[in-house]
């Protein structure tokens, strides 16, 4: 059983000429140079780049949580607002954003509640089991470990069967071992639904393992330095980690990242 009847046509994410400058007490800080970015329907794209380069801002703009100064965002031809209002979009934040007064099950169900979808206890419990948290349904977030909380946050995202899934370093707060587990366990859940995924990560190996394309951004103001395709089969497995394809892709990404850093230093 899939989480929710999947969308007939996968939704394409298309950012055109998007730029952003923050205005603060210390003047203007350009964060994003005008950039274009397209994520094909049903595919996964990972954004990597130096710390504070504006990856998260780009993601928030794609979600419609923040407005861009120039350019447009189209999700399957619609604005993010429309998708959000339809409950067809879900975001996993850096922090798990679990509400401390709700149980695990209540937090997962909250996704459906906020999207105004009918409650579905069977689905919620199934999702909790799939992310490996069976037996913890009645626990409150305070009683769960960091990894468990991240799993719960992902389960909440999936509970609505989103067409667009935006992941903002969803595993940034967990240890390396847990992260590996989650990297392998969770993606099949959203790939079943044909969701289009845009994710931000610090981890090069995570970016390569999870995505179909890796886009490397430069230092602030961010612009695209490299756009690297990942030629690995689905579903990804632990074995792939030791393949030459995987390693060479990682090497390319790391090389591009190093370039991005040096160009930034040179610019300063």
């Amino acid at each position: 059983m899939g989480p929710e009847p999947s969308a007939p046509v996968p939704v394409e994410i298309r950012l055109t000429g998007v730029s952003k400058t923050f205005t603060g007490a210390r003047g203007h800080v350009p964060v994003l140079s005008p950039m274009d970015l397209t994520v094909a329907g049903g595919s996964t794209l990972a954004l990597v780049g130096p710390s504070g380069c504006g990856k998260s801002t780009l993601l928030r703009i794609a979600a419609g949580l923040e407005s861009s100064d120039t350019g447009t965002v189209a999700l399957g031809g619609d604005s993010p607002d429309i998708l959000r209002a339809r409950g067809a979009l879900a975001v996993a934040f850096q922090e798990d954003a679990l509400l401390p007064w709700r149980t695990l099950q209540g937090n997962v169900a909250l996704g459906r509640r906020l999207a105004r979808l009918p409650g579905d206890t069977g689905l919620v419990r199934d999702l909790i089991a799939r992310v490996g948290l069976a037996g913890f349904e009645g626990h409150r977030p305070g009683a769960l470990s960091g990894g468990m909380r991240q799993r719960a946050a992902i389960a909440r995202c999936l509970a609505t069967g989103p067409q667009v899934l935006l992941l903002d370093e969803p595993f940034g707060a967990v240890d390396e071992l847990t992260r590996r587990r989650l990297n392998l366990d969770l993606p099949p859940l959203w790939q079943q639904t044909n969701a289009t995924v845009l994710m931000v990560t610090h981890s090069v190996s995570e970016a390569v393992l999870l995505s179909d394309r890796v886009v490397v951004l430069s230092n602030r103001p961010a612009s695209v330095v490299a756009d690297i395709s990942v030629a690995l089969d689905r579903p990804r497995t632990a074995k792939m980690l030791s393949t030459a394809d995987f390693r060479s892709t990682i090497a390319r990404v790391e090389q591009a990242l190093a370039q991005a850093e040096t160009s930034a230093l040179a610019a300063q």
Partner: protein
Amino acid sequence: MIALRAGLVLAGFLLVWEGAAAALDGRFLLAGPRDILAYGQTHAALLGRALAETSRAAALGYLWGNLAALALAAIALLMPMSERLVRTLALVVFCLPLVATGPILRVLYGPGAGPQITLSALSVFYTTLIPLLAGLRATPRVWLDLVASYGRGRWSALTNVRAMAATPYLVAGLQIAAPAAFLGAMIGEFTGAERGMGVLTLRAMRSIDVDATWTLATLAAAVSMLAYAAAGQLGRLLWPGAPPVLLVAPAAPRSAPLWQRALQPLAMAGITLALWHGVMAAFDLNRFFAKRPADVWQFLTTREDARDTLLSALAETASTVGPGYLAGLAAGAGLAGLCVLLPRAAAVVLPVAVTLRAVPIVTTAPLIVLAAGRGAGGLVAIVAVMIFFPTLIACLHGLQRVPAAIVGVFDSYAAGRWRMLLDARIPSALPAFFASARMAVPAAVLAVTVAEWLATGTGTGNLMALAASTSDYNMLWSAVAALTLLAVAGHALVAWAEVAVFARYAPEQLVR
């Protein structure tokens, strides 16, 4: 063990009380526990009926006042444009002194408990509204993003996230409100009632019946303590887990253009005046005692002598508001700090604090005057006693709201209680502290007028009492308007300090 310790504290408290009463014997100031017990036994039926009457009015006032605060907070949050207006109007209404509202309420309601219930509601709504507004804003940004990511608006954010996140603040408000509601109902009986604790208190004081006076005060304090404890219990039921960790992302404050900032106070003033006139006109209140803004304006512009009288009284009041306000705030915050540093002290401080808040100031004022004199000292002491309580409770809640992770960091360095207080607890308590600092402004202005009336016979408090007794309602409403302006100005000063401090410590509080 805990029960034993509590028993010892109580026994010690009773002993000190009995000793103080014995020391003051013959001065008609204080009755000891034994006298109170004796009086209570012989007058049980009378006291029971009075308690039932006043408790009923207080319960209804508590209910309506807190519901009004909830509704106003929801309006302010759903329509951020309206927040300033809601705050200003709430402040103005809270500023209305009893001498002005008493006759109006009695004329509106006729006989019965209406004025008691209304005054009880009026004395609680503001102290619930202000912490609630702070609490509704003290929500981690990411929770709001979560709601927004599903395309839901403010209403959904309110019902799903903010309402629960604000619960600890609401509980603080409900606890502050508990003794205030009872006191409001008692004072409400001063507008002309047939029965109740307030009626009996008046009677007892005039009869120099110290046993009766202090039995009534003890009963009022006991009821208030029960209500206070019940509100805390309700909070623990509503909030099963530990307080949440506030992980907040700073947002760029949107600064309004200058013309808007300049226009806003004018708009507030206009709306306030329109409502003042409109409400009186809507209820067709007689102009003899319900003066409209135009009446006050005409009075103040044509009667130079009256203007001078008012201004000199106001100057006198203004000069004591500051020290009284600071003393009350310092007493509240200091006691809260003491309770955190020495948790055992809380067992003594809190009951005494609730008692001081729940007992009408007319009962305690003679004792305070005896201790602090009739001069400025007595004035400041009375004001401090009247306003420290909300600050104590709000700060106590704030000081206990430090995220567990931060407590962990401090523990890992074996940092002491002091270090924790200075570097962790006080910064976390700032929103609560400023919420109480805001609440304390109108309370201090009102308290100074009461103290002036009870202790020194000077200033605006005395002027208002005199004006009310001689039907000089023009002067009374002019004084009300002037005091309100004073409170609004003080409030603006506190708000300015708040912005300056939050810009450093708690930027989420600045997001509208």
